[in-house]
């Protein structure tokens, strides 16, 4: 690995601009990774490992890495971190960077599309199943409410997500 101060500075700037303000407080103690369900599930580049790579300036190099999408936003890392890093915010900042560069995982793109269309990130047609158990076919949610869907679309079109041109 080559230590390139410009790359390090640039990476930290981008992560902070995207909300990962605490990144430089990290002392690499590993407590976050000890309790992270994502790390346990086999996403290696989460919490402290992701922070370490970013502190080394490895931003573009990791752009296709899908570990960040394994974060459950459970925030246990934030709870145990002794330095007030708020690792989850760093993970999300990295995700925002990935999203801005359109480096989505397929699953992430699908869930964004679902959200835009139905108001649910994960959506399967429930009609069949509901009819079988004698429930009204349509759920009382945005999925079957055109006005609610319109509201959600307006919100998304006007958010940074709209600027990505996915929808």
């Amino acid at each position, binding site marked *: 690995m080559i230590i390139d101060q410009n790359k390090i500075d640039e990476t930290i700037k981008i992560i902070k601009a995207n909300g990962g303000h605490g990144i430089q407080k990290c*002392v690499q*103690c*590993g*407590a976050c*990774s*000890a*309790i992270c369900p994502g*790390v346990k599930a086999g996403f290696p580049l989460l919490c402290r*490992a992701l922070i370490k790579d970013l502190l080394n300036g490895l931003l573009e190099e990791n752009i296709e890495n899908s570990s960040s999408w394994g974060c459950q936003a459970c925030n246990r890392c934030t709870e145990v971190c*002794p330095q007030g890093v708020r690792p989850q915010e760093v993970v999300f900042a990295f995700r925002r960077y990935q999203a801005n560069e359109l480096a989505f995982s397929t699953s992430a793109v699908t869930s964004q599309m679902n959200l835009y269309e139905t108001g649910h990130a994960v959506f399967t047609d429930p009609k069949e199943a509901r009819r079988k158990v004698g429930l009204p076919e349509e759920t009382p949610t945005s999925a079957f409410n055109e006005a609610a869907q319109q509201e959600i679309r307006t919100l998304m079109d006007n958010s940074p997500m709209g600027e990505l041109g996915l929808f």
Partner: protein
Amino acid sequence: MAKVGVYVCHCGSNIAGVIDVSAVRDFAESLPDVVIARKDLFMCSDSGQEMVKQDVRDGLVDRVVVAACTPRTHEPIFRAAIEKAGLNKYLFEMANIRDQASWVHGNDHEGATEKAKLVVASAVGKARHLQPLHDKFVDVTNAALVIGAGIGGISAALELANMGHKTYLVEKEPSIGGIMAQLDKTFPTNDCSACILTPMMVQAFNHPNIETLAYSEVADVDGYIGNFNVKVRQKQTYIDWKKCTGCGDCADKCPSKTPDLFNGSLSDRRAAYIMFPQAVPKKAVVDIEHCLNCAGRTIGTQPKINEKTGKAILAPCERACRAGAIDRSLPLDPGGTIKEIKVGSIVVTTGYQVMDKGWFKEMAPASPNVITALQLERLISATGPTGGKLLRPSDNEKPHTMTFVSCVGSRDVNFHTHCSRFCCMYMIKQARLLKEKYPDLVINMHFIDVRSAGKGYDEYYTGAREMGINFFKGKVGGLEILPGDQLRVLAYDMEAGQSIEYSSDLVILATAVELPPDATALAQKLGLQFCGNDFFRELHPKLGPVETAVAGLFIAGCCQGPKDIPDTVSQAKGAAAAAAVPLAQGRVKIEATISEIDSQKCSGCGICEPLCPYHAISMRDYTDRARGVIERHAVIEMSSCKGCGVCTSACPSAAIKLHGYEDEQIYAQIAALTA
């Protein structure tokens, strides 16, 4: 007319990097009564001082203003210089154009230069009105007080006593010894703690120059370096220590049980108890909060009489004591007794406490098998609750897998940001001792990083690796309670980049070192301040490590910051040496810049008396024989006055003069600043 000399310092680039020193010098020259204005790269250097001295010797100047850095560090230097040249040292004034101008206005060179001119003008204004003053001296009480008798306090007291000074050693617990008395063995040589500590405890207790006041606390302090008046409250023991032989029979018979804090609450002790087997003094006390008042024997009441035998019905402790040291019919004052002592200097060595596991919700504090490292010391000590056998608290079974968790509450912005400094080493010590004794025991140690700075310390650590103790870099994230009182350890291996999860029988938390809560009250009594890490603050982090802001008051050991035994002893001996200085000198100087009351002007209103934060003012009656009346005046005890000026500004009769800060001097400063 005064002849003022002004000397402006560049302080390398500290001042000259921002301020136009030549402009300030030119300006100074134009001020009234200024006869000479010079500048130099470093005024405090030999050549800089020589320049001032020469001008004094040549009779050119009789008032000196140095425009430089802070009087806190440099005023004494320049005062000494002009004194050497033959001028009264109080004919000196410092203009702090570094802290007050160049440092705080680094981005505004012009503004800083203008401000520096004002600061100089103000100092010159005052200097024109300075009067010669003379220091006074008071005799010193040749005795010292050491508060807190852990290894730090014992070391300091022995040092002072061996120098020939009478030393009072005050300890709040029934025995001296401190936390070292609770330890099993000590790193890095593994010598038994009691074996090296007990002889020192005995030596201190028997020393002809040391008076040990155990089970005592400082109730009140007043006075000043050389002459402190201290009230020590000797807590009520409810047992006559003159008669108590330390046999422990009362404790054997006492039915009341309460957690034994000395054993980390891993076992119980009685209400009547001796603190630990090697206690010094070896005396029993009754912990009255937990006393059951057996046989209706509340303190100060006569015993009931057995109708059949006609004998008094005594409490078990009274009956057990063959020395007759327990007599519950005596009306003993629960407040204890106050002993007044006079000392010339004070050393504070009140030590530390470790954080309770209850603070750490993610570390399964509810499990009996999660204990602090200090509790483990008791668990492996031969005098501990298990006689030195490693048995886990939940079921008294021998653990197979055991876990050490470092930095619990230390290096953590939620608790203490400081490193507790000796935990890495004692955890390695405990692991080594256990691995030696139980080779089959699996020991997993989890560190953020191992801090083993010190002679022989790193070798101690690397040696532990060779003994088959497992080291993992990575802080433990949490513990979960599993069936069978097992603990699931959620850890991480930094080097491998993998999470670790396993079941452990016993988990040791190295909890943070902090001041005990009663340290705050003591600090208020003594005038001690706290540092950023909430330990007692030393005068200077590098050059005044044992001194404090209060003259004659010194600190050492863990109350100043976490440190191990070798460092505690070194610092304690250093503090003792510093505390011996005023005692050896026999008299202390009272700076002349203190307040004085003009009895002719004093109306005796008494407004000043309660205002003085140092209790230096008292009201006294005088008989004016000529007029045949009794008059009241305020008087200031000069050894207590610190020259704060509160009384001066409050006196409605303008009877109080603060030397060195007299009205006309201060008005001259204001006039210069507002010109």
